[in-house]
Every structure is written in structure tokens, then in C-alpha cells.
């Protein structure tokens, strides 16, 4: 199903979220997280951006939404005062703040239109006045600057420079941008799971490198759970996740998989 809105029109994940909230005419303080997350994911799928920086920002928000969504299913957390914590609170605060500045930017735009009709004048100071430079009183200027202070300043700069210098990355020679093909990666993860029938989450993570790959892998897993194609099990928090393929369509066999991705 196509979405008739140009995705590039959104300046970022918050902008897109605000749009969805307004479009659905829902209350920002009581976001129906399931619907909004679904719609958000739908937009994400439609997104055809080559810009990885932009994409990763949208993906981070997707992960946040999914996290909130899952926390909404759990029994409510309670803060130190014994009050229930709404998992949506932090997001709501962010959205409100963002919305406020967006609103202020419209105010500024209006102001600008009113202020544009003044002309100013170039300086017409006579040259001899313009070129006059008062003599610099060096003693006064340097004041109580001592050699040891100058020395300390230099030492601090060198220390900062060393801190900036990253001995590990600098050995790489040149840094490559992380390249990731979103739909390809999702297919890859799905094929891997369906091929193995049963596997561990960490096992998939080490197949490829990069933060984006990890995010996409996690998203894919959530997606497969939603579609009922996998069943997952985790014994305790932070433990590895066991994934069982329960999908009906035939997965790719291990041999084929090995051929494809050798």
C-alpha cells in the first residue's frame, strides 16, 4: 500500500511522528503507541533514502517506538514515589519540546517579513578616520600573562590533541562509510533463520559488522515476530535469545544459504 506523502518532506523522526499524531487526530499525551508505531514502520519501509545518516536517525526512533510498545505490554513500572511510570513520558516530552520550537520558528518567519523593508547604509567614514588604529599598549594587553601560564596553555592544547587522536582508528588508513542495504539485509536475516530453523540471536549479529546491521537485524526479528514467523525465547534479561522458525513458507536450505552467502 502506497503512502501518498513525500517522505523527504520530513525533517526527521520527530517531525514524522508529529505528522502522524496530527493526521490521526490523537492526543500527544496519550499516543496510541501500537497504531502510531505501525504507521511509522510503514513510512520507514516506503522510505527510499540513500542517506545513511538520515536513515539511521529514523531507525533509532523506530527502535525507541518498538521499545515503548513492548514496555506497554508489561505490567507498569513504578517509580520511587510508587507512581506508575508511563513508558511514553520521555517521548512525549521530546515531542512537546520539538513542537514548541517548530511553532516558534513560524513566529520568527512572520517577524522576518515585517522587518525586511528597511535599508541600511554603508559606512562613509573618511579614510583617514577609518584607517586610524590606536597604538596597542602591549604591557597592558599582556597584563599578568607569565611564561609559565603560556607553558600551561600549550601543555593543555597538546593534551587535548592527544585525546582527540584515536590510535586505533588511525591505523585503518582510511575510514569507510558503513554501507547497508536495508531490504537486502532483512532478507538475509530472514533467510538465515528460516534456513537454520533454530538459532541464537547473537549468532546472527556476528555474521556481519556495523551498528546499522545490528539495528536492522533487531528490527527484522521484531517484524518476523509480528508476522508470526518466529517464536523467541529468552531465559533472563540480557541472555541470548533463542529463535525458532515457525513460518509456513519454506525457508532457504542451509546448503543454498551457504552458496548465496559464502
Amino acid at each position: 500500500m502506497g503512502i501518498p506523502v513525500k517522505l523527504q518532506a520530513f525533517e526527521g523522526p520527530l517531525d514524522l511522528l508529529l505528522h502522524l499524531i496530527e493526521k490521526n487526530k490523537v492526543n500527544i499525551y496519550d499516543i496510541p503507541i501500537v497504531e502510531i508505531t505501525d504507521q511509522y514502520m510503514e513510512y520507514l519501509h516506503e522510505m527510499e533514502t540513500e542517506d545513511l545518516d538520515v536513515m539511521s536517525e529514523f531507525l533509532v526512533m523506530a527502535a525507541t517506538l518498538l521499545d515503548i510498545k513492548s514496555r506497554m505490554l508489561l505490567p507498569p513500572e513504578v517509580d520511587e514515589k510508587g507512581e506508575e511510570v508511563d513508558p511514553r513520558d520521555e517521548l512525549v516530552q521530546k515531542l512537546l519540546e520539538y513542537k514548541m520550537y517548530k511553532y516558534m520558528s513560524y513566529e520568527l518567519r512572520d517577524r522576518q517579513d515585517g522587518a525586511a523593508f528597511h535599508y541600511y547604509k554603508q559606512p562613509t567614514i573618511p579614510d583617514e578616520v577609518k584607517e586610524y588604529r590606536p597604538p596597542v599598549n602591549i604591557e597592558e594587553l599582556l597584563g599578568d600573562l607569565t611564561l609559565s601560564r603560556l607553558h600551561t596553555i600549550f601543555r593543555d592544547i597538546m593534551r587535548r590533541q592527544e585525546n582527540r587522536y584515536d590510535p586505533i582508528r588511525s591505523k585503518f588508513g582510511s575510514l569507510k562509510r558503513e554501507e547497508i542495504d536495508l531490504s537486502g539485509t532483512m532478507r538475509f536475516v530472514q533467510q538465515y533463520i528460516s534456513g537454520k530453523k533454530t538459532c541464537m540471536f547473537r549468532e546472527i549479529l556476528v555474521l556481519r559488522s556495523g551498528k546499522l546491521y545490528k539495528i536492522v537485524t533487531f528490527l527484522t526479528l521484531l517484524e518476523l515476530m509480528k508476522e508470526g514467523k518466529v517464536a523467541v525465547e529468552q531465559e533472563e534479561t540480557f541472555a541470548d535469545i533463542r529463535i525458532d522458525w515457525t513460518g509456513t513458507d519454506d525457508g532457504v536450505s542451509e546448503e543454498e544459504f551457504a552458496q548465496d552467502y559464502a
Partner: protein
Amino acid sequence: MELGKAEAAIEAILFAMGDSVELERIAKAIEQDAETTRKIIYHMMEGYRTDRRGIQITELDGSFQLCTKSELYEYLIRVAKQPKKLVLTDVVLETLSIIAYKQPITKLEIEKIRGVKSDHAVNRLVEYNLVRELGRLDAPGRPLLFGTTEEFLRHFGLHSLEDLPMINPVQLEDFKAEAEEEIQTKLEV
């Protein structure tokens, strides 16, 4: 110094300098204290208000500058080149409004609020001279701090940062009230 002479001197100074001139510099030049000078300038501003005058004095954060009256714009564009109008995109305006209200602010803080990288927008704003570096934050990495310029005040017709349109508390309250009402309605259903 006689009042008339002081006014004449100030007009000459502002005219010749073209740019905005700090109150203290004007005061020193006419050999008066700052408060007297301010009073004289405010008195002059009244005088410029008459219909026969085409220019006026505008105050910018404790400095003063001469400019044409906006209602005469139509005559000016018939002779003078139309000043290039700065077109600020939504992204740039959004970033600018965050900087204006939160200054001094680092790029990272801007990005936190907007949820996206803002380098490009900040660089544009510095290029347009609406935003400038204010120094560095005393924190790891010593990130740059940004704030607005005098050109920013001029561009938006503000006399100081205190003139910034306030976030209308009524409006924000409206948002809240709306929200609560909706919840109420749902509960009653």
C-alpha cells in the same frame, strides 16, 4: 554642550558609521554620560517620527543604527537595488529558533531537540551571519557554543533578545487542556 549640537553630532556619527554604534562610544564622543546620551537619543527618535523624515534610529541591544522607514520601501526599490532577501528554509528556521531561545547552545544539544543532525543548518546560519560562535563549552571535546548575532536582531526586527516572541503560555495551556478534555471524553465513553 547644548542639546541641539549633541543631536547633530549623534546624527552625524550614526550616518557616517552606517553600522550600529554602542551607546558608550556615542557618549564618549559627545562627552556626556551614558544615561544623558540615551535620553538625547530617545528624544531624537521622537523627532524622526514626523512624516517629513525618511529615516529613523533603531535600537539593537544597546547600540543604535540609522535606517530607512519601512513604509518608504516602495519608493526605494524604484531607485535602489532590491536587497537580496534571505530565504530561510523550515529546517534552518527551526534550528535558528532553538539557538535563539537556548543560547549559548552546542550542536549536540540542538540535535537532541531536533532528533536529527544539524550541522548543515548551523553552518548555513553562521554563513548568513545570523548565528555566531560564542566560545567553547568547558566539557570533554570542548564543543563550540552558538548564539545569535546583531544581524539576527536586525533581520527579525527585534531590539534585543528580550523582544523574542514569547512562547505563549496560553497556547501551550490550550494544548494541554485539549489533551485532557480528550482523555475525559474517552473515559466517559
